[in-house]
């Protein structure tokens, strides 16, 4: 089913023209959460979601790992430094980067069926 496949991680890549920063394993995303406020993510994000943010600081990893977030999508083409990518690999968090803004990415993801 078309919609179903769009909620799996590697297929999201093409939707937002994202480049993977870590190795990607096939994972069913439970949904998506968009916020640039760490406490907001801590309070409201569900486990297993794709988190869309502009932050590339390592605190993103702390929060993501705490909430068992499956993958983080950095918008506006932002990419964290190598040490942070390495830490993400260690923590089992997948990282992606899209050239689109958060708003554009959100629209494309929604349209593709990630709800």
């Amino acid at each position: 089913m078309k919609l179903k496949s769009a909620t799996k991680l590697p297929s999201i890549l093409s939707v937002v023209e994202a480049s993977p920063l870590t190795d990607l394993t096939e994972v069913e995303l439970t949904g998506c959460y968009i916020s640039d406020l760490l406490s907001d993510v801590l309070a409201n994000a569900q486990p297993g979601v794709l988190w869309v943010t502009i932050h590339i600081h390592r605190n993103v990893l702390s929060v993501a790992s705490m909430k068992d977030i499956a993958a983080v999508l950095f918008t506006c083409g932002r990419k964290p430094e190598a040490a942070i990518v390495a830490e993400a690999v260690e923590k089992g968090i997948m990282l992606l980067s899209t050239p689109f803004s958060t708003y554009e990415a959100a629209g494309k993801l929604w349209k593709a069926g990630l709800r």
Partner: protein
Amino acid sequence: MSLAVPVEKKKTVAQGERHAGSVRRLKGVRARLNGTARRPAIAPERILKTGNSEEPMTPAAPAAAGEKAPNLGDKRQVSFAQVLVFELRVRDAMTSPPITATAADSLRSIQHLMKAHRISGVPILADDVLVGIVSIEDIINALDGGHINDPVEPWMSRKIVTLRDHFSLVRAVAEFDRHGYGRFPVLDTNNRLVGIITRGDITVCLMHHLERRAEEAMAKEAVLVATRAADEKAHRTVINTDVKSGDFESAGKLSQRMREVLRSRGIAPDVLRRAAIIAYEAETNIIIHSLGGRITTSIDAHKVRIKAVDSGPGIENIDLAMQEGWSTAGPLARELGFGAGMGLPNIKRCADEFAIQSELGSGTRLQATVFLRKAGVTL
């Protein structure tokens, strides 16, 4: 012969020195402490001249009297004994009250006093004021010169070097080295004779205190071992972490460690997550808002208790701080995604028990408890 010429005291250790070995050790301690073998000696106090002169020497300001405090900043280890010679005072080691005599007593009676009390020096008092001292050397001279039955007065030494009861032992050792006397009379700040001190007294005092410290250390160790055993029995793990103000790079380290412990115990993921969020928010609160603090996470079989204590500046209005969206975070914190004004509300929401106290100027104490449940167990 009958002409009274006070015997000039020689620099000698013939006055019943019985602890040469330990003294050598003390000398070594002093030399190491100073980093030099010798240094300019401290001017001795001469009681007959100085009257009321009081050197500004208190334990709080040892430098004022020329003492060099052990430099703890360098990498050298400072032993217990070294600390002790600075900490302990002459009054801790001296023999008090001292055996004394008057100027009218005969040298023979002094000889008997020395024999009876096994001492080798007797201070001479006139109206409670120290006027002289008779050492065993004076007695030997008297026996040799045939004036052993004379009164003390013409034969006693009048040039007396004394120590103050508040001097440190390291200074006392320096005075022994400098003068070579076997003993010093000890005066208090009112120039009253309060004791007498020998090198042997210093050694005994040091040994006694070392033993006591060792016993204390052993007792402490025993308590620690017992606590650890009790912790083990209760499956208690305590993680203490100092959190530095502004250290955003370290945020999350504590909660990470706590999560590892909880995960290894098979705690349900949702419970684990709540505990982790509390620890993380508490950690970032200290980093963002405080001058630094400490988080103690105590995990046992039934609960996690997270205590966060910081050293200020304190929260002006806790009700406001507990309100979602209200934040005083600075621009740097906000740039990093903090300062949503959700930290404290998040902690409260995740906790089964929650308490916070804060006082402007002194700091904030937060305590949150999460009751544990293993994975697969539903309530």
